[in-house]
């Protein structure tokens, strides 16, 4: 019988290697992120001053949409090929395995979005002071997106056409993160301290780390029986 940590890291390793074998799927959310941001100057104005004013919000919104787009894959493939049920039947606690899946999912979707964001900041002429809080905020924020999104993904895994419903369910939950994330960048650009806002973001991610794996595990048990 495998140990607890063995199972945990086993799930992470398995999910990462599956992701590495479908590199195209990895890039899709990133291109989506890039394209959405490209549409902004095309649809509003290429003027640097106006772009800079919208940059924090636009980057955060497109990061949110990009992670939302990738959420579908969190449990869907494993559900279709039956390995998700195997995970649920394993003697290890389900929340731990779900946490492992979320971490792996964040590594292949959230992290690339974070790393990609400075480039988009440049394209939208975000002032220099905004880059550090943007990166830091997105690290914390995308973690919340993945964690809370996992609950929605687990609830809708067995449903046909679950993806629209999924975004309907989780987007309202993302609102506080979006508010804190954009205001951190905005405050830094305006020359104010953003420590307090960043602390709220960190608190949000710590709290969802605490709650989401259990909720997602419970949701999986419900969602699959349905």
């Amino acid at each position, binding site marked *: 019988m495998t140990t607890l940590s063995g199972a945990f890291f086993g799930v992470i390793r398995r999910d990462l290697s599956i992701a590495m074998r479908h590199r195209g799927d990895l890039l899709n959310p990133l291109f989506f992120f890039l394209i959405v941001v490209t549409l902004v100057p095309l649809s509003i104005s290429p003027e640097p001053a106006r772009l800079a004013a919208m940059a924090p919000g636009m980057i955060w919104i497109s990061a949110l949409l990009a992670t939302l787009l990738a959420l579908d894959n969190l449990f869907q493939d494993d559900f279709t090929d039956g390995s998700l049920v195997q995970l649920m039947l394993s003697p290890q606690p389900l929340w731990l395995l779900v946490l492992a899946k979320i971490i792996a999912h964040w590594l292949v979707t959230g992290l690339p979005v974070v790393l990609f964001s400075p480039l988009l900041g440049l394209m939208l002429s975000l002032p220099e002071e905004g880059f550090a809080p943007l990166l830091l905020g997105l690290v914390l924020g995308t973690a919340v997106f993945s964690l809370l999104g996992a609950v929605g993904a687990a*609830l809708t895994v067995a449903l046909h056409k679950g993806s629209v419903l999924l975004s309907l369910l989780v987007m*309202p939950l993302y609102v*506080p993160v979006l508010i804190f994330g954009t205001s951190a960048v905005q405050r830094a650009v305006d020359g104010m301290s953003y420590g307090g806002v960043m602390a709220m973001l960190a608190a949000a991610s710590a709290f969802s780390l605490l*709650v989401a794996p259990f909720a997602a595990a419970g949701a999986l048990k*419900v969602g699959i*029986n349905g």
Partner: protein
Amino acid sequence: MWQWFHKLGSPRWFYQISGKFLPWLALASMVLIVTGVVWGLAFAPEDARQGNSFRIIYIHVPASFLALAGYYVMAAAGAVGMIWKMKLADMVMVAAAPLGAALTFIALFTGAVWGKPTWGTYWIWDARITSMLVLLFLYIGIIALSRSFSTRETSTRACAILALVGTVNIPIIYKSVDWWYTLHQPATIKLTGAPSMHPDMFKPLLVMILGFYCFYALVLLLNTRTEILLREGRATWVKELAQPK
């Protein structure tokens, strides 16, 4: 002593007991709401700055109260249903979702109507309005989820989880009033300390709030009773009920 708690688990018992409450609740809510409406709309003094347009407060505030309280009712019922596997709590949760969504919509709509003469615009991106809108989205998400499963039991469990996760947002909705103070006036009624309204204006509001609470309870009971009949359709007592006398 705890027998009533066990009895609550029986939909049949609840159906019979709640049937006795219904006329009283209906009477109470009708008397209170009619009194409150007439008092508030006709007899309460005119507001010094807003004139008569402030009178929509007698609908707006009670609806907003219950829109928020309704989410707690729903989440608490979902939690009870999940923890003690109580069928009745599940049914209350399902019954509370559309009701809460409707009240949230009423609060938003009356707010917009009130905003036009007061602020000169129907919609403003103020913290409290926005959090009300997010609350409406939370309700809509739960209603959408509850309609997408094939069995009622699964859909209730799923909704309960979502409602509990959504409760995380509710403190933020309350706190948002303090976080960003923009155009919206600060909370009018404080639980501690004197209300910042004139007593002559405040009393009919209190009557309206009580009336709305009774009305909420009434509709919640009716919705729950419908849900009981739908789910217990195979039970003999429901079949007997459906027999023409």
